[in-house]
C-alpha cells in the first residue's frame, strides 16, 4: 500500500454541498408528508387516569390520533439495548405511556395532521387526566428511596456491581496516608444543533418501508422496524441523511417517534414526518453524567497510589434502555493512565424521575477522569508536591503495555491498554503550556485521561471500481460531521492507487450497505476505517489477479498506481483500473472507456468457463473488520485561567492539548474533533447546567437559559499529537471523537481551585457557584 493519502491534511470532500445549502437533513424532506406532533407528559411522575382524544380527532385537518390502545405494540416494553447480568431490575418505557409517566416529556399520544400547526393545535386538545405521584429527582434521594420510581424496583436500584483488583481493604489499612473524598457531577445535555427528525413512507405496491432518520445507527433501526412490523429486512430501508451533530443521544433504539412515524405511514398510506422542536428536545432526548462518588485513597509519602476505593451512584433517569453501560465505563476508566495497584469500584445505578440517560460524548469518562484527577490534586496538596510531579510518579510506563487494569470493559472483555506513552504526553503538555502569565487569580490546570475506543462488534464496507474508473465505497455507519466521506476515501484511495476525488463514499444508508452497528464510542475509524481497508484490499487483490491474466504476468509483480494496474516499475506495461473493471464482468459493456481495451476478443482466452468456480463478477468486494478488543487513546490537557474575583467571570488564557489516537488518518479532521470536544467540555464545565426543580421540571429548557458557549467563551486550543499505533488493527488507529471533552471538567476545576483557593469537588461550575463557594469559605 502506498501512503499518499493516509496522514495527509486532505480538505473535506463533503463541504461543497453543505456550504451551498444543498445538504439534505431529515426535516428538509417533505414529499407531501403529513406532519405530526407528540403529546408529552407535563409531570415528572404521575398515574394516568384517562386519556380522551375525541376532541383532538374532531379538529380540522387531523388525520389520526394514536394512544397506546391503538398500537399493536402498545403494551410492548421497548428493548434493553445491552442487557447485563447485574442489571437485575432493568426497565424500559413503552412507545406511548398509558398507565404511569415517569419523566417530564414522556410521550403519551401521537397526532398526525395535514400540517404541523394543525397537529400542534390538536395535541393541545388531547385531554389527559393525571394523578401526580411523588417525585424522585436527585441520585441521592433516589438512593435514599423514600419514594419509588418503579413500584416493583426496591430501593430504586436497577443494578449494582462491585469489582476489585488486588486487595483494597488490606492495602488501605497498610497505607501511610489515607483520604476520603466526595465528588459530584450533574447531568449535561449534548444539544446537537439539529434536533431529531423522522420521515417515513410505505409503498403498498412494493411492500417497502423507507425511513429517513437523524440517527447514529440506521442499520439497527432497520433491524428493529423489520421485527416489529413483521417484514423481511430487505423490505425496510433506513437512511441517515445529513445529520446535524449527534454526540451520542441520537442513538437510542428506540425513541417513540422512530416507531410511530413509520407505523403511521404504513397505516395511513401516506408519507409522515415528525420534527422535534428545541423545547421538547431538552426533555425528550437522553441526557447523561449525573453521578455522586465517594472515594477513599491510600498513598505513601512520595505521593504514590497504593489503593483506591470508589463507590458511586449513577443517575439512570426513569428507564435503563442502555443497560448499565455508562457506570461500567466509569468503573473501567477511573484509574486512567495511572498505576493503581489495588482498586475496588462499586456502583449502584438508580432510577430518578428525569429523562433517561445514554452515552453523551465522553460517556462515563468525564466524571471518571474528574474523580481520579481531583484525587491526585488532593494528594499533591497534602504532600505539598507539584501536581505534575504526583502524576509523573504514578504514570504507567511505556514498557508496561499491554497493561491490564483488572476490571471489566463495556464490551465484556477486561480493560487492557494496548499501547501508549503517557509520560511523553505529560511532559509535552507542560512544555507547550509555557510560563505562567502574571497577575492575580491566575490558576494552572492539568488533567490526563485514557479513552477506550473502537469497540466492536464489527463494521463492514463495500468497495467497487466502476467501469468509469471511479470508485464507490459504502459502510453502514453514518456521519454526523466527522468527515467520514473524506477519511474513508483516503483509506480506499491508498489501497487502490487512485485519487481521493475519485472515491465516492456513502454511509448510513441501508440500501447501500445493510449491515453494521453505528457511529458512537469513538469507534468509526477503528471499525469502519479498517473495514474500508479490508474491502479495498480485496478489490486490489482481485484487480491484480484479473490484470495478471490479461497481461500474462505474475500478480505479485503488479502494483496499483495512478488509476492503473501495472508491472512494478514499468508504467508502460499496465492496464487502466477502468478496463480491469470491465474485464471483471464476463458480460462486457457497450459504453465506457475501458470497454474496447477489455473486449473478450483481445483478452487472452482463459481455459474453462468465463466465470471460474469461486469467482464473482464485478471489480468489487465486501469486507468486514471486527476488533479483538478496544484500542486505548490518551491525552493530557493543561491550561491557565484567570477568574475575576468580583464577577467570577472565567477567562481561559491558554489551553493546550497533547493527544494520542494512534496513527492519524487526517490531522485536519482530528484537530477539528478535539477543538469541538474541548469547547463542549468547557460548556459543560462552566456554562451549561440542566436546572431541574424538586418537581422534576427542567426550568431552563431553551437556549435562552441553557447557556451554550458562543465563540466569545471559547479560547484558541493549541494541539499537539503523539502517535503510538495500536497493535490491534491493521491501520494502527484509535478513536478520536470523544477525547477532547473528557478531561476538561477536571482541568478547569484544577485551575479554578488554584486561582481562587477554594476546593472544587463538583461540576458544573458557574460564576454564581464560585461566588457561593468563596462566600462559604470566608
Amino acid at each position, binding site marked *: 500500500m502506498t501512503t499518499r493519502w493516509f496522514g495527509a491534511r486532505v480538505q473535506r470532500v463533503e463541504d461543497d454541498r*453543505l*456550504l*451551498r*445549502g444543498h445538504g439534505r437533513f431529515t426535516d428538509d424532506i417533505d414529499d407531501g408528508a403529513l406532519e405530526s406532533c407528540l403529546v408529552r407528559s407535563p409531570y415528572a411522575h404521575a398515574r394516568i387516569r384517562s386519556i380522551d382524544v375525541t376532541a383532538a380527532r374532531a379538529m380540522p385537518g387531523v388525520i389520526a390520533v394514536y394512544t397506546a390502545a391503538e398500537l399493536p405494540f402498545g403494551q410492548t416494553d421497548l428493548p434493553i439495548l445491552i442487557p447485563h447480568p447485574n442489571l437485575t431490575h432493568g426497565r424500559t418505557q413503552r412507545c406511548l405511556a398509558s398507565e404511569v409517566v415517569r419523566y417530564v416529556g414522556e410521550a403519551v399520544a401521537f397526532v398526525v395532521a395535514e400540517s404541523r400547526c394543525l397537529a400542534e393545535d390538536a395535541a393541545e386538545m388531547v385531554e389527559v387526566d393525571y394523578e401526580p405521584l411523588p417525585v424522585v429527582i436527585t441520585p441521592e434521594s433516589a438512593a435514599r428511596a423514600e419514594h419509588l420510581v418503579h413500584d416493583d424496583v426496591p430501593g430504586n436500584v436497577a443494578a449494582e456491581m462491585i469489582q476489585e483488583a488486588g486487595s483494597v481493604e488490606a492495602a488501605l489499612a497498610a497505607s501511610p496516608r489515607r483520604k476520603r473524598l466526595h465528588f459530584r457531577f450533574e447531568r449535561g445535555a449534548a444539544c446537537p*444543533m439539529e434536533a431529531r427528525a423522522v420521515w417515513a413512507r410505505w409503498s403498498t405496491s412494493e411492500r417497502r418501508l423507507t425511513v429517513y432518520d437523524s440517527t447514529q445507527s440506521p442499520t439497527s433501526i432497520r433491524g428493529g422496524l423489520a421485527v416489529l412490523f413483521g417484514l423481511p429486512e430487505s423490505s425496510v430501508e433506513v437512511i441517515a441523511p445529513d445529520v446535524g451533530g449527534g454526540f451520542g443521544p441520537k442513538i437510542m433504539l428506540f425513541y417513540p417517534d422512530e416507531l410511530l412515524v413509520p407505523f403511521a405511514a404504513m397505516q395511513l398510506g401516506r408519507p409522515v414526518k415528525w420534527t422535534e422542536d428545541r423545547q421538547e428536545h431538552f426533555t425528550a432526548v437522553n441526557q447523561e453524567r449525573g453521578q455522586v462518588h465517594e472515594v477513599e485513597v491510600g498513598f505513601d509519602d512520595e505521593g504514590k497510589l497504593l489503593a483506591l476505593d470508589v463507590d458511586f451512584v449513577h443517575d439512570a433517569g426513569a428507564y435503563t434502555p442502555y443497560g448499565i453501560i455508562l457506570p461500567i465505563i466509569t468503573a473501567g476508566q477511573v484509574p486512567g493512565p495511572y498505576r493503581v495497584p489495588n482498586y475496588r469500584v462499586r456502583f449502584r445505578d438508580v432510577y430518578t424521575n428525569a429523562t433517561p440517560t445514554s452515552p453523551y460524548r465522553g460517556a462515563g469518562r468525564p466524571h471518571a477522569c474528574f474523580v481520579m484527577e481531583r484525587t491526585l490534586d488532593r494528594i499533591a496538596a497534602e504532600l505539598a508536591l507539584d501536581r505534575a510531579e504526583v502524576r509523573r510518579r504514578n504514570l504507567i510506563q511505556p514498557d508496561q503495555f499491554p497493561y491490564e487494569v483488572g476490571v471489566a470493559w463495556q464490551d465484556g472483555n477486561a480493560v487492557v491498554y494496548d499501547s501508549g506513552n503517557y509520560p511523553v504526553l505529560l511532559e509535552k503538555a507542560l512544555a507547550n503550556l509555557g510560563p505562567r502569565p502574571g497577575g492575580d487569580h491566575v490558576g494552572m490546570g492539568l488533567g490526563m485521561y485514557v479513552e477506550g475506543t473502537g469497540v466492536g462488534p464489527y463494521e463492514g464496507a463495500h468497495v467497487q471500481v466502476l467501469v468509469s474508473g471511479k470508485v464507490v465505497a459504502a459502510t453502514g455507519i453514518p456521519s454526523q460531521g466527522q468527515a467520514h466521506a473524506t477519511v474513508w476515501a483516503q483509506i480506499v484511495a491508498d489501497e487502490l492507487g487512485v485519487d481521493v476525488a475519485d472515491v465516492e463514499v456513502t454511509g448510513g444508508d441501508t440500501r447501500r450497505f445493510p449491515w453494521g452497528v453505528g457511529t458512537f464510542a469513538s469507534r468509526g475509524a477503528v471499525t469502519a476505517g479498517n473495514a474500508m481497508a479490508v474491502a479495498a484490499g480485496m478489490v486490489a487483490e482481485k484487480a491484480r489477479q484479473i490484470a495478471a491474466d490479461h497481461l500474462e504476468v505474475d500478480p505479485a509483480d503488479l502494483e496499483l498506481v495512478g488509476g492503473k494496474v501495472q508491472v512494478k516499475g514499468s508504467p508502460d506495461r499496465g492496464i487502466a483500473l477502468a478496463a480491469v473493471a470491465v474485464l471483471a464482468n464476463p458480460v462486457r459493456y457497450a459504453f465506457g472507456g475501458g470497454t474496447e481495451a477489455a473486449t473478450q476478443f483481445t483478452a487472452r482466452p482463459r481455459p474453462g468457463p468465463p466465470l471460474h468456480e469461486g469467482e464473482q463478477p464485478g471489480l468489487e468486494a465486501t469486507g468486514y473488520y471486527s476488533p479483538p478488543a478496544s484500542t486505548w487513546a490518551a491525552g493530557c490537557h493543561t491550561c491557565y485561567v484567570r477568574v475575576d474575583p468580583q464577577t467570577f467571570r472565567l477567562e481561559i488564557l491558554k489551553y493546550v492539548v497533547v493527544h494520542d489516537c494512534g496513527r492519524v488518518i487526517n490531522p485536519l479532521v482530528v484537530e477539528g474533533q478535539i477543538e469541538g470536544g474541548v469547547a463542549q467540555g468547557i460548556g459543560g464545565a462552566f456554562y451549561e447546567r440542566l436546572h431541574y426543580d424538586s418537581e422534576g421540571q427542567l426550568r431552563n429548557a431553551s437556549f435562552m437559559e441553557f447557556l451554550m458557549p458562543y465563540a466569545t467563551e*471559547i479560547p484558541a486550543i493549541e494541539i499537539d499529537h503523539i502517535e503510538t499505533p495500536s497493535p490491534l488493527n491493521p491501520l494502527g488507529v484509535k478513536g478520536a471523537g470523544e477525547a477532547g471533552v473528557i478531561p476538561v471538567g477536571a482541568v478547569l476545576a484544577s485551575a479554578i481551585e488554584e486561582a481562587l483557593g477554594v476546593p472544587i469537588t463538583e461540576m458544573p461550575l458557574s460564576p454564581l457557584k464560585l461566588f457561593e463557594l468563596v462566600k462559604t469559605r470566608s
Partner: protein
Amino acid sequence: MKVNGVVYPTPADPRRLLSDHLRHDLGLTGTHVGCEHGVCGCCTVLLDGAPVRSCLLLAVQAEGHEVTTIEGLASDAAPLHPVQQAFHECHGLQCGFCTPGFVLSVVGLLAQHPNPTPEQVDEGIAGNLCRCTGYASIRRAVHRAAELSQK
C-alpha cells in the same frame, strides 16, 4: 418579496414564519432551524444585505425587501463565494447544520469590517452557535475570507 433575485408572491398564510416560508414553501432548505427562538443563528439570512434571524420574522414582514439565503450566495455552476471557500479551506464546518447561518453572518460582518480585528470577528460570529467545531476553525475562516475577498 425578492429571494435570491427572484420575485415571489406574497405568502398565503400571514402566520407563516420567514424561516418556514423559505424552507417549506420555496424549497430553500439551506436555511436551517436550530431553536426557533432567536438564539442559535442557524436560520440567519440577509435582509437587504444585513443578517437577520428568519425564525423571528413573519414571512409577510419581508414583503418589499430582498432576501438572500445561502443558496443565493453562489450559483450552482459558479465557484464558491469567498466566505464559503474560506470555510472549506479552514475546516470551518463539521456537520454543516450551523454553517449557512455562519456564512451569512460572516458576509454581513465583512461588509462592515473588510479587515476585522480578532475582537470584531468574535463579535461578528457571537450570534451563532456551533456545537461541532469549537469556533477556532471558524475564526480562522473569517480571517481567510477577508483575505480572499480582497483578492
